[in-house]
């Protein structure tokens, strides 16, 4: 089965989101936050076209937007916000609308995109970037062997959860449930 890169992010945030997507599909309410996020992405994309590469610590390159990536081998596909191609390689960039330090789920989503880019270009990807929209800050993420292993393991865990149709435990951070679009379906936490 083919998973989405965003499933990695969601699973690490709360595995129940992935459960409700694949095992027990339910109606998902589109929240204001989600719509706002889409608008922000379009705006940042427009601005990025006019910018240089200094914030990425690169001298030159070419920006490519909303690239569809797919790997049969990993069993995962997704649409990457942006990637930079230059002489020293290619680097995935994900736009994130957070003013805090990016979460681990964002990190591994980026690592997963880096693995897909590697397959697309047949070259190793050493770094990726999380562009934090509110502060216009760029956060560098090193793509380490351990991080790749972790992503593969996470993909396996997701596949196993779907195959066994096992309902995962609730996340241990209750704050995550407040703005969740599946809140109504988690009777044991809300």
């Amino acid at each position, binding site marked *: 089965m083919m998973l989405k890169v965003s499933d990695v992010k969601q699973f690490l945030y709360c595995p129940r989101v992935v459960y409700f997507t694949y095992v027990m599909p339910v109606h998902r309410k589109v929240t204001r936050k989600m719509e706002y996020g889409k608008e922000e992405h379009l705006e940042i994309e427009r601005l990025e076209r006019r910018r240089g590469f200094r914030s990425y610590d690169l001298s030159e390159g070419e920006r490519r937007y909303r690239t569809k990536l797919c790997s049969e081998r990993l069993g995962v596909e997704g649409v990457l916000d942006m990637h930079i191609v230059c002489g020293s390689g290619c680097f995935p960039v994900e736009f994130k609308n957070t003013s805090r330090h990016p979460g681990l789920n964002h990190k591994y989503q980026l690592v997963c995109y880096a693995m897909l880019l590697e397959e697309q270009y047949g070259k190793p990807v050493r770094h990726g970037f999380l562009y934090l929209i509110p502060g216009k800050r760029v956060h560098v993420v090193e793509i380490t062997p351990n*991080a790749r292993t972790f992503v593969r393991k996470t993909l396996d865990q997701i596949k196993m959860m779907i195959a066994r149709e096992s309902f995962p435990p609730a996340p*241990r951070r209750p704050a995550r449930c407040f703005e969740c679009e599946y809140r109504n379906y988690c009777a044991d936490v809300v």
Partner: protein
Amino acid sequence: MYFLTEEEKKHLLKGLLPRSRELGIAEELRGWNWPAPPLQPVYDTVLALYEVANSYCPTNRDLYLRRVRRVFPAPSAAMVQGRVLHAALVHVLVSAKRLIYSVGVAQYQTICRELQELGPVNVESELQALAPEDAADLKRKVAIVTEFEKARIISRIQEILFKQPYIGEDSLAVLAIPVIVEQKLDGSFLGLSPNLSTDAFTVCEPMIVDLKFGERRDFHRLTTTGYALVMESLYEFPVNIGCLVYGSFRGDRLIINKDLHIIDDELRQWFIESRDEKARMVYEEIDPGFPAECYQGCHCYAACHG
């Protein structure tokens, strides 16, 4: 065995240390964030660090037997060997420190001579549990480790003394043997035993060192990771580097390989997952079942299979 070679020092200083500082560890995975998830323990089960880190049995049924069924099989020959060789090394390192403090720098030749004459640690009681040929082999290995370590320390003492004419005992001891062996740590904040003991801890750059005699396994890094988290929870400074020291024997030669590694986000998450999974197994008294294949020399084999 804990001292790094020139190449290992270079690897540490030019490679791992700068990378570990650039890499950035997620704040939630630093030991000092133990009061919040994911580090906050879920169950009030107290585990020893080795119980979390070791995964020799694929289903961890050894842990279930010990902690739930209260079955305590006798240690295997490999376990006895590991324990005895650890003790042999501690004996040399502690004796050398003791000699430096008690004899003094002024009589450094006495330190070197007495260290040279130091006999191996007495392990007769441990050897009784082994077959005669295993006991004889272990005795030989203890002698090899002892002689090797004595020679290394003497050479380090002399090297420091020719460079530092005004050195005192305390400084000589720290420079010649810059490790604390069997450092006691309280792992309570992370749901671990309050009486943990790490093989060695280097003081110059906070680095957890763990000694292994046996095959290299990927989960061995969980040991250094666990101690790093505990150190961070207790002292609130970052511990980014771990070092696994693998000792093996080729005839009468001691061969040492080191696995220097960064204690990164992934290892930390793996450790926490393993802790939670095993704590749940003990708390809920869940029998994980038999593995598809038992490993050779498992000390729980008889307990599992009658």
